[in-house]
């Protein structure tokens, strides 16, 4: 996995160097220097690292990548749920998409769905949606339930 990341890093940096060379005039100097610097240093580091006997990375955020296959699949499923959440937001609206994402994410993490999880997340999303509308004023994507909540709050307040 480390090799894949290293490959992606070098490929992206090479693409950036290429983009820098497309810039014309004096404006090209800074991006060329910075991108070539990044590419050269990353290659130097990765080669030195590959030759070094022991891994030196902090490995912090990448901890999940060392999970056994079954658990890694569950981790990937949680990631997929939240990626799908962003795609679904404009269509399903904030309330439905958020509730489904939270509930499914918790169910996958705990290994089973639970009624308390379903009710708890629904209550949280409802309270947060109300807060968004009357305190935070963040215009979130709307679907039928969000619009109904809007109407309800408008009539009440």
């Amino acid at each position, binding site marked *: 996995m480390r090799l894949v990341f290293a490959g992606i890093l070098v490929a992206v940096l090479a693409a950036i160097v290429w983009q820098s060379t497309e810039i014309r005039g004096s404006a090209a100097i800074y*991006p060329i220097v910075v991108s070539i610097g990044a590419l050269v240093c990353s290659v130097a580091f990765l080669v030195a*690292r590959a030759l070094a006997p022991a891994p030196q*990375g902090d490995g912090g955020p990448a901890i999940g990548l060392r999970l056994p296959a079954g658990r890694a699949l569950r981790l990937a499923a949680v990631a997929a749920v939240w*990626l799908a959440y962003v795609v679904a937001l404009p269509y399903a609206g904030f309330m439905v998409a958020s509730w489904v994402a939270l509930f499914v994410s*918790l169910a996958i993490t705990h290994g089973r769905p639970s009624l308390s999880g379903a009710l708890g997340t629904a209550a949280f999303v409802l309270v947060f949606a109300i807060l968004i509308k009357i305190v935070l004023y963040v215009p979130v994507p709307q679907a039928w339930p969000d619009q109904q909540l809007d109407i309800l709050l408008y009539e009440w307040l």
Partner: protein
Amino acid sequence: MWEGIATALSALSLTFAVLGVVLGVIIGAIPGLTATFGIALLIPVTFLMAPEHGMIMLAGIYAGAIYGGSISAILLNIPGTPASIVSGWEGHALAKQGKAPLALGISALASGVGGIISAIALMFLTPTLAQLALSFGAPEYVALVVFSLVIAVVMLDTPIFANITGAFLGLILASVGVDPVNGTGRFIFGFYQLFSGLNVVAVLVGFFCLPQAIVLVAEAISGVESVAVGRVAATKPRQVLAQLMKDRWLALRSSVLGTGLGILPAVGPESTPLIAHTLERRLSKEPEKFGKGSESGLVAAETSISANVGGSLIPLLALGIPGSGAAAVFIGALTLHGLRPGPLLFVERPEVMYTFFAGFLAVNLLKTVIGLYGARYLARLLVLPRGVIAAFVIFFSIFGAYAVDTNLFNIWVMFASAFLAMGLGAVGIPILPVVLAFILGGVLERNLAITLARSDGVVYFLERPLALGIFAVTAMIILLSTWRRLGRLRKRSVEAKA
């Protein structure tokens, strides 16, 4: 100035200060969640507040989280944040001797003392430094940014090429968008949304919050349960005060050291307590007690960590250069509120600055009180399951990235940043130089362009002694660091041959 102090002491400001400290302590106490994470996650919450209230709340989160990390370190020997490792050595050893209330009390009071001393330094040093910075031109800013990046690169323990790669990557991220010379799009790969550059908050949330949430999910899936915290007796403030009076000079030394290290870029609260602890061990009459439950060791660690917080805010507010990763995230918050960190802040919005100074002092006083009387109750929150924390962290990260300018594209920027952070973690490139360079990249490029346009050779630089001085110090640091690294390499090769 008095108007600012009065605003800071208003009921509303104090409410936000308490809220910030409590949220910070909770975040810091949960192992795995850091102060940087807390600030990044809660920046969007400050949207609706006046800038000064938002800053006070974020300062409360910063100071509270750094302190909160010690609660789990003392009670469970699990540092809530990396800064609390030394507190765990001393505090947990004290807790095992049945002195948990005393350890928690010392931690709260020493943290308060360190914070208050750094707040006083913040109050007096920042305007002086800002006044000096008003005479800065483009070359001085270039020199200062290069100095900060060099410090970040040479100070970190990770391989030097990894650190330099990180810094260059940050500069690349900062140069996405319209280029300041031609006004044309750069590194946008066909996404018109990138013309305005990468959203700072989205990138920082992606760097600090999402990867941490994924670690929490992985831990929850692996069956790592929440921890059990037993009942802790109430702290006796008199006993704690007596201990701190005994260690008053140690506390003062550690606070000054913490503040000084905080001013340096890249020397965050993580390494500060180790330095303070080592120094005090050498100066102590009972060095053998250090590391085995020494009250003095705990005082040294706590005062220095807390003082580092205030110290890291000094270059941030006076020069626009963050002294730590968390302070770098602070810049995102200031920008969001329309404030430009740097010397002009004192000219344009002095009331905000003085309110913040007084608010930061209040934050540290409140943190002490909350710590002394509430730490044992806040420790109960450690029982929250990791899976639940992770799901809500992901949800709030996404909401925060979206809410910055109600743009769904920012969420993808956040995901990409998280992927980058995890990838860099996997190959061993540290994230701190990336963040510092990302924050400072715009300043560097703009001022470099101005400097190059104005300069007509070496004479121009000779007329800027301050810039030359900073460049000379930077060159010296590079030489010293290279010398030390070469020495280490030589020593290793000699050892290998032997």
